[in-house]
């Protein structure tokens, strides 16, 4: 797996996937755009929490096009959302077999395994996800969490501690749509599907300090290496990986990926830059996952000491307020969409659409986090809604 990510491989699709996508397009009998619309409809219904409707629609669609990977994937997500783990496992497993090049089904399988405390299986699935696409940020992030959890387990066994004492399940991020998702409505019909799948190669804004995934930095940027590893070389995936990661993910959920999609353009980009974007993304996703798992320590730790709560609240009052709002919900999910990150030296801005669900609440809003680097860590300095 530690083969270095080659931009080309990363953003284009393997023949298998392409074949699948083409098949979809073909089945769509001249109306692939329609298919895209249906995917979106299902996705929208899901986001609105209308899971039954979404399921009905997905099944109707699949009756005609049983092999459509995107819809099968969506169906799996619905099953997951409705607690049908076994079915979801079956759906994602089948997808991993039919389209082994897609990282998303592996990722979601891993999420389910992790929720069942099967961390070794989760790890294998995530490693497969990353093998298919070394720059898959969500899978990388999830894998980091799984490694951390496995490490805790191993340490607990080393110390012969009761596992139950230490087991707070990590909440891993579910990927809700395939990277190959059709782009926002309104895009041109026809070959859109295929085109959208490859959105990336789009006109690369190569100028940006884009997360240049160039293989080169790997050797050059020991920064993210988790260990004072022996040879920077063999340092395995996590090390080099986090760097090039960021881009595709956002694309994943993003209805309007256009702006974001960074380019693999083997830009002569500064080696250091990409690390930052990926770092920010993980901080932000970590923040969201801490929130979702109601892990207040982690959640609050994401905010820097210079964080000033909005509305003139004191830090302490704000913390208490947050605690009261977060802890005790039967479940929380926080999904980030259209995550866009700008890094500017020691500060960074992350904008995204936050889809928050808790108990019966379902709120989607725009959110902006301003982050500040102190030492090796990034902290949230300001949080604002809108924009």
């Amino acid at each position, binding site marked *: *797996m*530690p083969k270095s990510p080659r931009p080309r491989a990363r953003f284009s699709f393997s023949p298998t996937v392409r074949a699948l996508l083409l098949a979809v397009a073909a089945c769509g009998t001249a109306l692939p755009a329609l298919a895209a619309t249906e995917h979106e409809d299902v996705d929208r219904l899901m986001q609105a929490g209308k899971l039954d409707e979404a399921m009905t629609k997905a099944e109707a669609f699949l009756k005609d096009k049983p092999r459509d990977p995107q819809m099968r994937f969506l169906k799996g997500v619905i099953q997951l959302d409705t607690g049908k783990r076994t079915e979801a496992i079956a759906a994602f497993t089948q997808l991993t077999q039919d389209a082994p090049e897609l990282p998303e089904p592996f990722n979601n399988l891993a999420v389910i395994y992790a929720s069942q405390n099967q961390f*070794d299986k989760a790890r294998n699935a995530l490693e497969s996800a990353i093998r298919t696409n070394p720059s898959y940020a969500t899978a*990388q*992030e999830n*894998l*980091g*969490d799984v*490694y*951390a*959890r*496995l*490490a*805790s*387990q*191993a*340490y*607990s*066994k*080393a*110390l*012969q*501690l009761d596992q139950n004492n*230490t087991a*707070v399940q*990590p909440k891993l991020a579910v990927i809700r749509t395939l990277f190959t998702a059709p782009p926002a409505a309104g895009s041109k019909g026809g070959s859109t599907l295929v085109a959208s799948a490859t959105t990336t190669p789009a006109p690369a804004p190569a100028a940006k300090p884009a997360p240049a995934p160039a293989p080169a930095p790997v050797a050059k940027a020991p920064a*993210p290496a*988790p*260990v*004072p*590893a*022996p*040879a920077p*070389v*063999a*340092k*395995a995936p*996590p*090390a080099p*990986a*986090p760097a090039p990661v960021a881009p595709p993910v956002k694309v994943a959920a993003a209805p309007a990926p256009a702006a974001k999609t960074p380019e693999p353009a083997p830009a002569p980009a500064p080696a250091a830059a990409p690390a930052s974007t*990926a*770092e920010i993304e*993980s*901080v932000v996703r*970590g*923040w969201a*996952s*801490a929130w979702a798992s109601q892990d207040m*320590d*982690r959640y609050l*730790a*994401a905010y820097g000491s210079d964080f000033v709560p909005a509305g003139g609240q004191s830090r302490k009052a704000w913390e208490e307020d947050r605690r009261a709002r977060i802890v005790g919900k039967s479940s929380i999910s926080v999904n980030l969409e259209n995550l866009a990150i700008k890094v500017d030296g020691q500060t960074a801005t992350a904008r995204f659409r936050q889809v928050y669900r808790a108990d019966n609440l379902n709120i989607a809003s725009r959110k902006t986090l301003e982050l500040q680097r102190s030492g*090796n*860590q990034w902290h949230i300095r300001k949080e604002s809604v809108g924009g």
Partner: protein
Amino acid sequence: MAASALALATPGVALAANNHNSSASSKTANAKNSGTTKAAKAGGSRASAKEAKSAKAGSGSSKAQLQAKSKRAAVADSASPARPARKTARTAAPIQEASGAEARLIGVYELFGRGKTREALAKAQTLVRDHPNFQLAQLVYGDLLAAQVPPSNAMPDTAGIARLRGNPAMVELHEESRRRLQALRERPPAGTVPSQFLTLSTRSRFAIAVDASRSRLYLFENADKGMKLVADYYISVGKSGTDKAVEGDARTPLGVYYITSSLDPRSLKDFYGAGALPINYPNPYDVRRGKTGSGIWLHGTPPQQFARAPLASDGCVVMANPDLKQLLRKVQIGATPVVTARSLQWISQPQAEKEEKKFADSITAWKDARASGNEAQLKKFYLPDFQRASRKPVDADSVLRDELTYAQGKRVQIKDVSYLHWRDTEDTMVATFGEVFEGEKNGRTRRQYWLRQAGEWKLFHEEILG
């Protein structure tokens, strides 16, 4: 976060690096062993032969490597002194039969040390799968996993990991790791024996020496050509260390002993694992010095533990069950000596023979005095408080008379001699031998305890074994 992994792996690196240089010579050494005991073992894990090979280390540059701060440095260090390392590898006794689990653990260190983190992780994973109760392996596996967590994942379980790493019990695991590596890096020089083993009767087919400072038990096979190190194992000793003096001090005795029995594991609590081999502590020398306590055993581990911390018993010597099982097949009740030392001194076989000759002169003189029938002459060999073990204590005078009647004028041949030398504040010798009168087939087997006073060897205790 990586501190732990690094701390563990660095010695591993030194170890591993060492081996690269000596791979050629160690290969031959390994081939030699594999013909015998190793072969069967190697089947267990495909990698074990390789691992055992890599685990054996010349000690030439190990100090420098230990100090190397980064792995890269360690690797670089090791690259230059290739020649010397090769040399030392040739003269050091190879690891021959470390338990499969330990050899596999060392393999993990070695891979990590070479930067092959993925392979190390995979091996560690199968190791903990096969030995989930091997705590040190779990620690190493945990370190390798934690090393895979990108630093940007700062949030997830890191607090938990930090807390676990801060657990005081980690110190013991790190110490276990350190001692295992040390013992594997600092091998006994080839052709040497612990200084206690001056000579060993071939009736004792095996002999055991425990080095508490290294948490290591060395098993020797005693054949016509002398003693040969055939295996060594990680062991734990008393919580309070060694030099047992009184009952309940949680110390492991130091001295020369014999295995007195083998207890059926079915009759034992789980706590003792695969079995137990009591030794004759307190021996007559201990008794003479007023040491107390009892029930010092070599035994195994409870099911939930593969191995125990270096200092963890109440005075017993504790081994991993697979290791103990190997030992159980080899020891002979009453005939297998067990030396327990704070730190073993290794001497060459010729030097051991020289020492043996010196002491043999005293035995011969004792024998001649007895044959001479001169009581005054013979008495010089006994300390006033001499005792012979029997149902009731027998005083020195009656023993003297007894000996004179027993042996007067007859020619006696001494055979199957074992001399075990023990030196601490005093210089003592445990001599075991058979004596046969001319024209007879059988005779007595004696075990005598001698003490050197003012340069003269004197008897203070004797057991007639049969």
